[in-house]
């Protein structure tokens, strides 16, 4: 490689030219060699990023033809069943995109599918971050940015769903108006402000359009940039494994490995979106017809990400309070559509801070938790997902009723009760499963794993051979950090001064006990050594007699011995028994 090829020469020339003007070489040299850890679940966020890029590209195409106007026009496009019907220009132009603009329907469907994937991928990415504890110090702010991104994603999606001004999207807006009106004191006026008067008014579509194509995507783009910059500067977390510590990053360099992988994955995501955009109908607006406030279709649903809100509304009993005969509080809307999502999203945003406070954990974490090693957190996550899932079922209660021959009323009543019973049940169940897995891990370290090979020893005894676990697995299990619950606070310190923060510290103590007290401690080094010793000793003692066939194939590590009553348990006993005869 003493002689540079012409290509290298040319490339070097360009690099030098650019470097002399923007000083990029140093930056590139540092960046391209940056190491990223490897795991398939680290690509879930990439799905979100790539689908967002597809949304931006297809959305730009759609803006060329969509007209955000509520001016009434008579439809004269090529979709016959709507010919001659009065409709808004927004709906007419959406129909034109679908039927009269080359490739329009494909792009519209790709845009919609990509938007659904964007939000779903953010959710799945968030699950990964949550269950592995990647939100812990120093990444709390990035978690917050993520929560804001999800919220913005919901707004972006919903504003897009409302733009075609078809019967379905208009129905969604009706419900939005109802929710806004249910907010006490300001509700009615906020609605007037939003819709510039009575619903639906004539301005809402154009206002929503600015929000949908300018405000929200701008914010998302800015926050995504910050999100990725923070990943860059804080470095990516990694799963535990041999040689992986809290202080290093084990993986591959950005160039060429991740350039290729990420680039390839972008095209896979793009390809999947294009495929389903071309093959699977989404939001057939022409069937729903134009929005008229006096019309509604059975089975009107929001897109999946709003389904939980719709479900909460559907299962809520019809409660309202009429104060002094002039002021109505609509609990039936306020609780499911404002308070419940408010609690859900606030809890989501604050969770890293709550956990850090409860557990008194102030350390930096770059090594991920295995979900089982923090059973309480994992339980909370599963509980929240279950809660969300039940509300989701509520959102589709009519479709479920007709599909499975159920009555909509019994589904509603089931959910009203289940929403309080099943999530806590799932919490307890998940926590127990996690603790069980911890016990299993400890067991594996001390006794190896059950190989599934059953051996019959010369004296007739059956044993299952236990094999030592691999170095990798050992490293993964040993990565667990045992955290002791915070000690109970003293009412008075040694000098007899009253502890002013006693009650708060006591709450913290109890909660941290709730988090960690039941954790199964991983075996100490001494215990492991003792176990190895023990196993070796036992193995020697129980080693099969060598004057039998196949004896050399028997692994020295074993346990879980199956005994027949009255049989000698070891070769030593067997020998002793023999010598007596």
């Amino acid at each position: 490689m003493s002689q540079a090829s012409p290509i290298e020469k040319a490339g070097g020339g360009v690099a030098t030219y650019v470097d002399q003007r923007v000083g990029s070489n140093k930056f590139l040299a540092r960046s391209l060699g940056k190491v990223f850890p490897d795991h398939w679940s680290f690509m879930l966020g990439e799905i979100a990023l790539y689908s967002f890029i597809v949304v931006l590209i297809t959305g730009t195409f759609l803006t060329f033809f969509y007209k955000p106007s509520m001016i009434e026009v008579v439809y004269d496009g090529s979709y016959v069943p709507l010919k001659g019907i009065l409709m808004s220009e927004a709906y007419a132009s959406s129909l034109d995109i679908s039927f009269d603009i080359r490739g329009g329907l494909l792009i519209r469907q790709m845009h919609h599918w990509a938007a659904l994937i964007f939000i779903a991928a953010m959710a799945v990415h968030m699950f990964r971050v949550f269950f592995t504890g990647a939100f812990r110090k120093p990444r709390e702010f990035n978690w917050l940015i993520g929560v804001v991104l999800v919220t913005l994603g919901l707004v972006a999606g919903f504003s897009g769903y409302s733009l075609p001004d078809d019967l379905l999207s208009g129905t969604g807006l009706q419900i939005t108006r109802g929710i806004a009106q249910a907010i006490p004191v300001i509700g009615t006026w906020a609605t007037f402000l939003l819709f510039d008067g009575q619903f639906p008014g004539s301005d809402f579509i154009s206002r929503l359009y600015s929000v949908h194509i300018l405000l929200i995507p701008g914010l998302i783009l800015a926050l995504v940039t910050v999100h990725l910059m923070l990943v860059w500067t804080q470095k990516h977390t990694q799963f535990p494994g041999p040689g992986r510590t809290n202080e290093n990053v084990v993986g591959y360099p950005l160039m060429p490995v991740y350039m290729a992988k990420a680039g390839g994955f972008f095209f896979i995501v793009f390809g999947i979106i294009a495929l389903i955009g071309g093959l699977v109908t989404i939001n057939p607006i022409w069937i729903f017809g134009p929005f008229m406030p006096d019309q509604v279709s059975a089975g009107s649903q929001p897109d999946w990400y709003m389904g939980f809100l719709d479900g909460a509304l559907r299962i809520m009993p019809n409660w309202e309070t009429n104060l002094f005969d002039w002021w109505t509080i609509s609990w039936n809307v306020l609780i499911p559509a404002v308070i419940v999502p408010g609690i859900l999203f606030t809890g989501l945003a604050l969770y890293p801070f709550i956990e850090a406070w409860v557990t008194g954990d102030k350390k930096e974490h770059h090594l991920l938790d295995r979900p089982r090693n923090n059973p309480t957190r994992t339980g909370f996550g599963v509980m929240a997902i279950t809660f969300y899932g039940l509300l989701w079922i509520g959102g589709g209660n009519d479709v479920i009723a007709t599909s499975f021959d159920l009555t909509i009323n019994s589904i509603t009543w089931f959910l009203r009760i289940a929403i309080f019973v099943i999530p806590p049940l799932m919490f307890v169940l998940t926590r127990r499963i996690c603790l069980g897995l911890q016990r299993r891990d400890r067991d594996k370290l001390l006794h190896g794993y059950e190989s599934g090979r059953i051996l019959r020893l010369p004296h007739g005894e059956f044993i299952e051979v236990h094999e030592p676990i691999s170095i990798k697995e050992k490293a993964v299990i040993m990565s667990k950090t045992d955290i002791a619950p915070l000690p109970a606070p003293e009412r008075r310190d040694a000098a007899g001064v009253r502890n002013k923060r006693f009650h708060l510290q006591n709450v913290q103590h109890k909660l941290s006990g709730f988090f960690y007290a039941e954790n199964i401690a991983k075996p100490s080094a001494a215990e492991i050594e003792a176990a190895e010793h023990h196993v070796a000793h036992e193995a020697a003692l129980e080693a099969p007699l060598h004057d039998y066939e196949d004896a050399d194939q028997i692994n020295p590590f074993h346990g879980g011995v199956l005994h027949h009553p009255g049989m000698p348990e070891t070769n030593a006993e067997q020998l002793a028994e023999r010598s007596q005869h």
Partner: protein
Amino acid sequence: MKFLAARRRSPLFAPSLLAIALVAVGGAYAAISSAQTAQAADAGQVAIDEGNKLYLTGCSSCHGMQAEGSANGPTLIGVGAASVHFQVATGRMPLAAPGAQAVAKEPQYSADETAQLAAYVASLAPGPAIPTAEQLDYEDADIAEGGVLFRVNCAQCHQAAGQGGALTYGKYAPSLMEATPQQMYEAMVSGPQSMPVFSNGTLPVEEKKAIIAYVSELQVAPNPGGLSLGRVGPVTEGLFLWTAVFAALIGAAVWIGIKAR
């Protein structure tokens, strides 16, 4: 002939000849026509009688011996032939089992038997009749107008794409994808189960035709967007997303992850 020839010039000859001719023609006509009506009346009566027999064996246990109704079924007096034809031709009646509402199934009676049952019930009291061919001729109806009428009057239960929807306590508005024009018309005029009656005062015949034209169009409409996912809206779209699409995406992620190891 001498008798006639002798009186041929009499002034009474022409009037009396006319009178004889009139009596003869009138008498013959009366004789023939009454025979025809008697035949028609006989045929109608036969259908009613046959219908009555079918009714007594198949329907009376719930609707009563004289169609007066019972605790198990409503009276059929005045429901009209349209209602009977709709319920029997779609297999809803006779009822397979008591439930929230009658379920459409394979018809249990032949077309003739259905007509006889309808004739019997129609003979009890006037009610909506089976639509004529002219009433069902929707060739010239305005599909777009029918779409508007459908969304105003039908979509809130039958769903915008006519896929049906849930009602309270296990009742439901059925899918219209298999409904024939006659069944749609009969359902509109008779209002089966939870459905309201759309009389000609509410929906004139022309508007009924327009709705039938629109629904018939929906039944055969292609799906320009590809796989339709049942045209029930975002629920199946979400299901497809979270199963097929995410299986593909996460499968790809895992695949890329495995390759690097």
